[in-house]
């Protein structure tokens, strides 16, 4: 079928470093095709270091979260248009708070995953 474009595979990563330069959040979206089905996955990482001159080592928090069907449209928009203001607020608000709670063992992984996933629908909240 000449003239037809291939299905696209794309990943978008947003890295935000705290102003003390000791912590970093990575919010990533990955789109792939599996069995002719579009799959969206959020990759979320939290990295921390003791000194600004040290490299960030392995992430303290590393989650791979399957995006719900209901959030796929928001994922598509976020990947192609970037985070909007409500999404950035959520990531730097509840997202950051629950990441630190998860790091400290105060909440389970699925709760953090739910908070991170909520970044997507915040686009239209």
């Amino acid at each position, binding site marked *: *079928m*000449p*003239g*037809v*474009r*291939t*299905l*696209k*595979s*794309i*990943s*978008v*990563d*947003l*890295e*935000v*470093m*705290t*102003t*003390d*330069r000791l*912590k970093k959040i*990575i919010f*990533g979206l*990955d789109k*792939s*095709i*599996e*069995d*002719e089905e579009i799959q969206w996955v959020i990759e979320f990482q939290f990295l921390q270091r003791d*000194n600004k*001159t*040290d*490299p960030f080592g392995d992430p303290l928090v590393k989650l791979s979260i399957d995006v719900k069907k209901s959030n796929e449209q928001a994922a598509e928009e976020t990947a*192609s*248009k*970037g*985070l*909007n*203001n*409500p*999404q*950035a*607020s*959520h990531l*730097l*608000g*509840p*997202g*950051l*708070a*629950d990441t*630190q*709670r998860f790091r400290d063992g105060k909440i389970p992984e699925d709760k953090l995953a*739910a908070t991170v996933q*909520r970044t997507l*629908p*915040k686009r239209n*909240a």
Partner: protein
Amino acid sequence: MPRVTALVCLFCTAIAALVSSPASAQCPDRSFDAFGKQGYRIREVRLTGPLLRRSSIRDDLGVAARVKPGAAVTSDTIEGGKAHLRQLLRETPALFESPVVVSVVTAAVDRCDEASKQLDVVYGVYTTKVPLVVSRVVESREPQEVDPATRLALAPTPLRFKLTPRSSYDPSNGAMGGATMSLATGRFFDRLTTDVQVSDSALFLDVAAASSRELSTGWLRVYEWSLGYHHADRPTDQETLKERAFVGYVTTVSRPLGSRGAIVRWSSLAEAGEQRTALLPEVLPAGYIASANYGSWKNAVGVDLHAKRHGLSAAYGLLLGMSHGSDAVDYVKHVAEATYDVRIPWQAAAWTHRPLDITTRWSGGHLGGDDAIPVTERFFGGATATPFLPGTGWTLRASPELRGFPPRWFNRVNTNQAAIGATRYQSVTLTAAMPLWQRPLVPPEVIAEPEVVQQINAQLDSAEEVIDILHRQTDPAYISLIERAPSLDSRLRALDVRVASIGNTLSANSTAQAAACRTLIDGVRVQLDPTQNPRPYLVAVFANPVDADDPTLSNVRHVCLTQLGKQVGDDELTKLGEALVSEIDTMEALANRIDAVRAKTMAARDMVFPRDVVRSIFHELNVWSLGPALMFDGARIDLGGPTGESATRYALGAGSRFTLASTFHLTAGYVWNLNRDGGEPRGAPFFTIDLTAPFGR
């Protein structure tokens, strides 16, 4: 997340695009696995985007992810390659750390051949890490072009130790060799640096320990300090000017200020040492000495303005010198400089990546004093200007620039005089350069995709949103909001305690409601927790919820007060709820007072430079380029003294420049003197080769 640092950063951004090369239309619209099931194999792996050293990345892909010619096409293989590239971007070391970085990796297939069952795998790789602090000043453009890998994080760069050789030739210094070295220390001083250039007749050595810090608030973005040793043997056409001094300086750089995003720089440098030359006393002007121990204090202030294609820079420097004369200050030197540069792109598609660069510079200086002035402080003009602030990276000039003369040879009115230098000068230089042959950093087929440009702009907008949030956290209303957070927290805690205390009296349905209420309260309270470091962005608690579990104040009101409150009919709960609602209203009013326009303006200002850099990466930077350069200079010197002798000279030159991005940079040419005095040189050749790919790790 803390407040913005504003400064800081810049960032970054970048991005990307759902890239599909034009040839991808040759492939049918199916998944990677579908190609695999038909027996397709990989013919070639291609990388697009502003990447340097892409061949090594491609080799690495073959080893790490098995994406290589001949391999079977599978989704796992191609997606594995994409994941590998993604990880590579995250781990690529850069000279600087951007507060916000956006990276995009795409994977597609191209040139599908049904007969041979072969296809190409095409990865688009885009990232932007832009150092805002150092990149909006006049000195930044050339390093960005000749070494984009280091300046724009387009490829790995050594961080701990670097050694960069270089060589040059001119008739004054002769054939020089040297290197710059840098060692990261991470102690009180961030790094130790050495810059040395040596020839038979000249020696330039700067050794320093330096540190810099970035500030998150206020108009000041970065400050840097250094202690070091400066040694220079500067030959003229007669004698050599010798300087040895211990040098310490502090330099500050502002964040973008005003509607134009001006960068203001200030530097204060103190030095003490000796200046010597072998000039005989009888040739020295009155008040000057050939050799002296000296101390000087230099201060300079400058402003840099950059629009999309225009740059304007102005600076002024003042030197107060002491050389054991009769006064506390024996001599005073003033220098000033103004630079304007413009980049003119061509509209024709065939001429993209061949911008015409024009740079003009005016500089002037004056040396005054009555007694014990080291003659080396006078102005010696020529092809290379003497830096006013050696070792600082600030190229404020302290001598006339006249490229038709070898360095420091324009130092007298006629050739019968001794080379004593001038007490006053003015010079104007004009340089125009344009690459005629080049290979763009970003392949033209990528730029031709409108979708790519649209996506990049969208991601830049995204980065701006993040910076907007960071700036809101510096707003006085937000700070008031943070200060009031304990009050809200205490009301939430009281409500939580009450809900817990009535738990035994609730029905099964209400018990579930109470549990949901307490979970929401917990989720909100953690966002108010002052011990969180960094603190979460508090305004998010006022956002509209996206589901029943979303820890927002709106959900707390709905679940705890509207639903649970009605179910249990508890007076105390109602009372606590009313207090909570009152506090929420008060705080929401505070949140609404945050100056969103100010934050947006500041974010937009911070993003001016990143947007410009991204545009430059896509439309102007080249992997290699070769082109001509034309030069015109005019300079006037005044020798001072009772006779007030002066001389004005003009020069015209041509040369060529070859740049292999992030590898080396070669410039060669000749400049003719148009109105030389009889004994003065016809002109001066110049040749420099800078290796921009450092050795190190």
